């Protein structure tokens, strides 16, 4: 193998272990998605809530900020003490890290809705709930998606590190490459799909974000 160039080693690796890489790819993707999904389930209502009761916002955002400052490997190890080895711990870690971007973006999105539009809604006799459902949320959706997009890219990075507490995924391939003889090709075989995953999810979500950005009637 040593006489092959790095690139041909990489091609050889993919042709022999393609199915394995694919299954690890899936696993990494799912773990990140689940973490972020849970983050959205908790973070979006929380963001909306603190935008309504603004006194609470420094507290909630402060807590999320503190979580974000903990290095991910430390967070994984701390949670491992309570939750044990494996994917559950990694999902919870991704969840915690996705809280800040999601809460913050939801909060900002809610507040940046044009006051005139809100007034118009109120003037039409809408209840507070109707204003929320028909004006605030639709108009801030693109900002919220931007937060989710941020969270997902962070989440993929964390899931790869999660390999150290036995969660599997593409991180396993990278770690194995660092142990193997001449593991350069193996490291790339794990790192390239990871980067690709982050880039593609980022592109897809940015597309959705653009579609959801509110347009005035003249732009349509």
């Amino acid at each position: 193998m040593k006489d092959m160039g790095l690139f041909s080693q990489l091609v050889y690796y993919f042709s022999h272990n393609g199915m394995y890489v694919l299954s690890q790819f899936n696993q990494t993707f799912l773990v990140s998605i689940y973490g972020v999904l849970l983050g959205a389930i908790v973070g979006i209502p929380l963001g909306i809530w603190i935008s309504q009761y603004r006194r609470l916002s420094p507290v909630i955002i402060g807590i999320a900020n503190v979580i974000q400052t903990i290095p991910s490997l430390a967070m994984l190890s701390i949670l491992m003490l309570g939750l044990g080895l494996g994917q559950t711990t990694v999902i919870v870690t991704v969840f915690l890290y996705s809280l800040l971007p999601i809460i913050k973006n939801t909060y900002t999105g809610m507040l940046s809705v044009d006051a005139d539009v809100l007034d118009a809604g109120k003037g039409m006799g809408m209840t507070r709930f109707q204003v929320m459902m028909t004006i605030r949320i639709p108009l801030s959706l693109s900002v919220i998606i931007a937060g989710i997009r941020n969270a997902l890219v962070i989440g993929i990075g964390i899931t790869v590190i999660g390999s150290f507490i036995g969660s599997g995924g593409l991180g396993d391939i990278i770690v194995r490459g660092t142990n193997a003889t001449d593991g350069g090709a193996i490291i790339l075989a794990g790192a390239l799909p990871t980067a690709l995953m982050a880039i593609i999810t980022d592109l897809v979500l940015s597309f959705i974000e653009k579609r959801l950005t509110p347009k005035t009637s003249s732009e349509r």
Partner: protein
Amino acid sequence: MRKHLRQWLAAFLVAVVLLPLGGCALPGLSGSGNNTVRIASQNTTEQQIMAYVIAGMIGHYTNLNTTIINNLGSGNVSFNALKNKQADISSIRFNGTDLTTILNEKFERDPAKVNTTVTREFQQRYQMTYFKSYGFADTYAWMVKPAFAKKHHLKTVSDLKKLAPTMKVGIDQIWQNRQGDGYPAFQKMYGYSFGTVLPMQTGLLYDALSADKMDAILGYSTDGRVNSYHLKLLKDDKNFFPPYDGSAVATDAILKQHPELRSVLNRLVGKISLKTMQQLNYQVDDQLEEPQTVANNFLKEHHYFEGGND
């Protein structure tokens, strides 16, 4: 205003309640459900190959799911995973190592005695079943580059005596202070010490030797890199290093819950020789094959050891 506050609070509470539920049974992931067997594997090649061999066997003979907890840092970590019920099967454990590190028993050179003590004590103290050996034993071995061996006419470990004071050797981190078969006892038995001893991660040893950063290393006899670097193993002429039989270990809890696992694991007993293990290791370490691919090919080639002992 009050009413809406309540609504949001309710939504928040529902989300919090849903959270732990989500952890155990998400579609697409092998969680820690009732039908999942968790296999602990360390960060070495042979551990990972055997973990996938076991997973493949379980998949073939039962309808249980398997999940592999990979990259655990040492034998202790993987043992604790079993002890704390975070894993059910340990892919390979070496009885000689477990005797001194896990059980804290006195060092013993007789393989048969080691085997009975470890099997008995694991059962009694930790309620874990030590299976019979896969058929290969791992042992430490001094290795040098063939050119170095030729130049100094090295064949046995005793031949190093004259060179030792000027030699730079690499060892793994555990060996230096190990009781019984560690460096102190080695110095006593062979009657010499090395000039410089550098403890480091096992994987780095082989690279360091091949890059001429070391004169000799203490590696593992089953390692695939012995072949890929064409290293020369020096004969342990005073029989200092005892062979450590490699076996699977499973918790009694999982064997009770799924009794069929016992016969599945027993099918592997005695089926994997030192040569086979070296070869499998070589395919992973040198031929760019993933442990899973190697394990599956190996099992298919041997028809999942069907028709063996039941």
